[in-house]
């Protein structure tokens, strides 16, 4: 398989994208943040200096020290360790949520664009109904129905964001379908599945990828926001949003405490959105010359 021509082509194209991104400061910024988060998430037990669940109430709300680099929280738990462990739900929520919305979105979007007629109307209609609710309200109500847990947060966020993908995929498929090169492929005898999978999807995929980069950022934001409202994850899992909420009441006693999760959230969002932007440029063969 690795010797096939297809693989060579893939490698060539990837190298090209990497080459372009190598020249973009945004790629470095975003890439290193994402890497940091991934490493924290995967190797949390190895990196974290302490057990994030270990309470020690006699040592509560201490400032940074050699033992606890970022200090301790109200139960005397090590903030740095908690911050590192909290990368896990962040990663799970952002990747999980995005995978759900991208997959459902692509399927529905393609279906709408390709089948048309009543199916298309129904699908568009579903999108519209979902979009008619302000997302935070929708998420909140759904969460109250299903009950908060990591999985339900992921699924609900995925479903809430999904119409964006469905709509983009549909719109782009419709316009892509009219493109000359699709007609050319048809004139060569390509069947629908080839046209969809070889011609349309790859062309759409870049926009989907970029959009999902940005949405991964907003997933993190929503999850943290929900936790901030007290509706996110279950203890002992702590997310940055949970930490944010927990530290809110100490903004006067221990203002630094709220800064760490806030920074973590902002950094992650920054990472995902800058990386997505850089990828957008690199993936578009037409845009990437100037860089």
């Amino acid at each position, binding site marked *: 398989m690795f010797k096939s021509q297809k693989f060579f082509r893939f490698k060539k194209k990837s190298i090209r994208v990497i080459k372009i991104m190598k020249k973009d400061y945004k790629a470095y910024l975003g890439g290193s943040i994402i890497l940091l988060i991934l490493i924290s998430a995967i190797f949390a037990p190895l990196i974290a200096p302490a057990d994030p*669940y*270990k*309470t020690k*109430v*006699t040592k*509560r*709300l201490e400032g940074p020290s050699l033992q606890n680099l970022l200090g301790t929280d*109200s*139960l*005397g738990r090590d903030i740095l360790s908690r911050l590192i462990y909290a990368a896990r739900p962040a990663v799970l929520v952002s990747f999980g949520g995005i995978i759900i919305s991208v997959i459902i979105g692509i399927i529905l979007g393609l279906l709408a664009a390709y089948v048309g007629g009543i199916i298309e109307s129904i699908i568009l209609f579903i999108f519209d109904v979902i979009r008619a609710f302000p997302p935070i309200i929708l998420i909140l109500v759904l*969460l*109250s129905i299903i*009950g*908060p847990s990591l999985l339900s947060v992921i699924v609900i966020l995925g479903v809430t964001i999904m119409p964006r993908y469905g709509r983009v995929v549909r719109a782009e498929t419709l316009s892509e379908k009219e493109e000359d090169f699709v007609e050319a492929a048809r004139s060569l005898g390509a069947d629908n599945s080839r046209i969809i999978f070889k011609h349309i999807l790859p062309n759409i995929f870049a926009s989907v990828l970029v959009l999902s980069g940005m949405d991964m950022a907003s997933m993190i934001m929503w999850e943290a926001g929900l936790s901030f409202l*007290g*509706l996110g994850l*279950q*203890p*002992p899992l702590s997310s940055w949003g*949970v930490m944010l*909420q*927990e530290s*809110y*009441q*100490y*903004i*006067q*006693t221990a203002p630094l405490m709220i800064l760490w999760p806030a920074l973590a959230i902002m950094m992650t969002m920054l990472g995902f959105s800058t990386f997505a932007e850089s990828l957008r440029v690199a993936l578009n063969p037409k845009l990437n010359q100037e860089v």
Partner: protein
Amino acid sequence: QNDSLNIAIPGRAQTLDPAYLQRVLSDWPVMNSIFNGLVKYKPGTFEVVPDLAKEWEISEDNTEIIFQLKEGIEFHKGYGEFTAQDVKFSFERIIAEDANSPEAQSFINLERVEVVDQYTAKLILSQPMGRLFTSTLPFNAGLIVSKKAVEEMGRDEFASNPIGTGPYVFEEWDVNNNITLQRNDSYFEAGAEYGEIVFMPMSDPTSQELALQSGEIDIGQLTLDNFDQISQMEEFEAEIYPDLAIQYVAFNTSQEPLNNKKLREALRYIINPEEILIGAFAGKAERAYSILLEDMTGYWQAPAFKLEEVGEDYVWNLLAEAGYPKGEGLELEYVTDANEERRLIGALIQDQLSRFNIDLNVEALEVGPKIDRWQEGSYDITYARFTNTVDPGYNFQWNLTEQIGKWNLFHWSNEEYDKLWQEAETTLDSNLRAENYKKMQQLMNDDSIGIWVTHGVKTPAWTTEVDPVFSPDGVILPWLITSSEK
């Protein structure tokens, strides 16, 4: 104008009709300023003193009470003079069939109220009522509404347009859910000092704290962690009051594995309330050893069950006896609210149990699902806070057998407990009552059904420009606030 006071209340008031009070913390201080009862707690104590009633007489068999009323007291906004008719109306509307008043329980044995003459009213009871003078009459159920006003407006309208005889007159309930009261200048006792009081709902203690510092409010609550810092500031004063409520860890005694008493006993040592007090209450709250406050009738101090005193081996043994020699394989379900303090407590208990290899799954639920789970009994451990009144009968009723599936969080049934409670309900003999309540607590203790953690605290704080007065459990008495400058 300095003549106006802003007071924070911990949530949006739900109703201003005393017969339908929903949330004690937010509704009560407002009602208390607008209405009077026949009797009241003497400010700063739980001692009952006359209010609208001059004096009263209780019949031999404790079933008839005759109140002599003060004369010439006028309702607000021209709703006429206060008479025995209003007393009859106020109490009978609560026990009426179609009233659906949550206070029906408070007047459980009231048959009717007789108007003897304009200034004399007679309460006729079917059986003696233990809590009549402790928690019914001086509390919201005993507040007197204007008959004329309720009849004119109807119940719904009255709930947001209350007419009483109190030191303050209701003025406005605005969008922001602020409630504005104006001083009643023809109050029958010494009038209040401040011309206007605005109650502002602020659910979050941090918000109250910030508002206090930025001068938005004059009186509010502090977060426990900032209590020391802010109370030391020149501009503010603060005090800690013990709350009346009871917060406790409840074991579900009706299902595996906590139907095992040995295991519950072990848990009593493992779960350390002192750590909860530090972690979640910043060390500001006192440990509770009873449902009741120490000076209340029927107080009985449960043992402390300290791990240090018996040593770990003792607990390991208990666990072994219960069938979990190394604690392993024991997985418990813990249900709690989504709010932050409760989650902290959950995390803490989780960690404490993990020291004995016991897994605790913490489920922080929204109110709705949580209550569902409570009532289904599908949990092993939970943490709850129940509002209490001054009367023990009220406070002990939740653990009755009939409350299983409702608010009996131990899912615990004990015939003797039920009997003792019933007996105490229908006597005015406070010694008998005290005796019974003590026994009931022993029963609970013997069965190890839970751990009393704390009564909690109230931490009112105010700017030094005012001089507020509080009830013993830290509830503001707005009409007694004076300005400290004068």
